[in-house]
């Protein structure tokens, strides 16, 4: 190995953690429809599943803070995505669970209006989904 290639290799090693941390799916997060958002995360046609639990209030008085708790009991779940179908940008978050993490997350999201919240679980190269309607009294995206 020449000195130059060694240096290039070392530079690559140093640069890698940064680029990994900065990975952000601009296409999917920039999508303005739920269908485009699902396409962007490679989940165009997820199969309905009863093994995804979505715990959220039926009515959210304040759309700026809507608590949602999600867990997947689909065997081998490696990732969970949250799509709020009627938000201006429907894709809210995508969590990747590696060895050592349970497919569970609780988070607060903003909702512009009453909408179905779709959760997609990724397991073994397949996609599964469940939805839950949350009614919003006051939207939480503007201000």
């Amino acid at each position, binding site marked *: 190995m020449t000195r130059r290639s060694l240096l290039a290799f070392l530079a690559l090693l140093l640069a890698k953690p940064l680029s990994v941390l900065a990975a952000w799916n601009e296409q999917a997060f920039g999508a303005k429809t739920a269908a485009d958002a699902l396409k962007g995360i490679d989940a165009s046609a997820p199969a309905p599943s009863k093994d995804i639990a979505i715990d959220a209030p039926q009515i959210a008085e304040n759309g700026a803070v*809507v608590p949602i708790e999600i867990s997947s009991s689909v065997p081998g779940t490696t990732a969970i995505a949250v799509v709020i179908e009627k938000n*201006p940008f429907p894709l809210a978050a995508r969590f990747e669970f590696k060895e050592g993490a349970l497919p569970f997350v609780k988070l607060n999201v903003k*909702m512009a209006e009453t909408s179905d919240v779709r959760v997609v679980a990724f397991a073994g190269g397949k996609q599964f989904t469940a939805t839950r309607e949350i009614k919003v009294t006051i939207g939480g995206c503007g201000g």
Partner: protein
Amino acid sequence: MAGPMKMRATAQGGTTEVRVLMTHPMTTAQMKDQPLHFIQNVVVKQNGKTVIEAEISQAVSRNPVFSFRLKGGAKGDKIEVSWLDNKGESNTIETAVA
């Protein structure tokens, strides 16, 4: 703008529950007179090993709070959570499992 973080990690019945709070405006493209400013990446590490990688959007509420669950875990295990936003600002917090 990007303020302090708070985190609590507790071991219970074979899992570790991690609850983390980030101080961040999380402004959206819909807000008037405020630049778009939101966290994009969140990484959770258990004893130095990455266990959760999240990409999030402006739809996450202001001052985000997340709960995660990790397998195993004993008192003293190190949990680290870091975030990076669309302006390149970042923050990290580390705590020991209680």
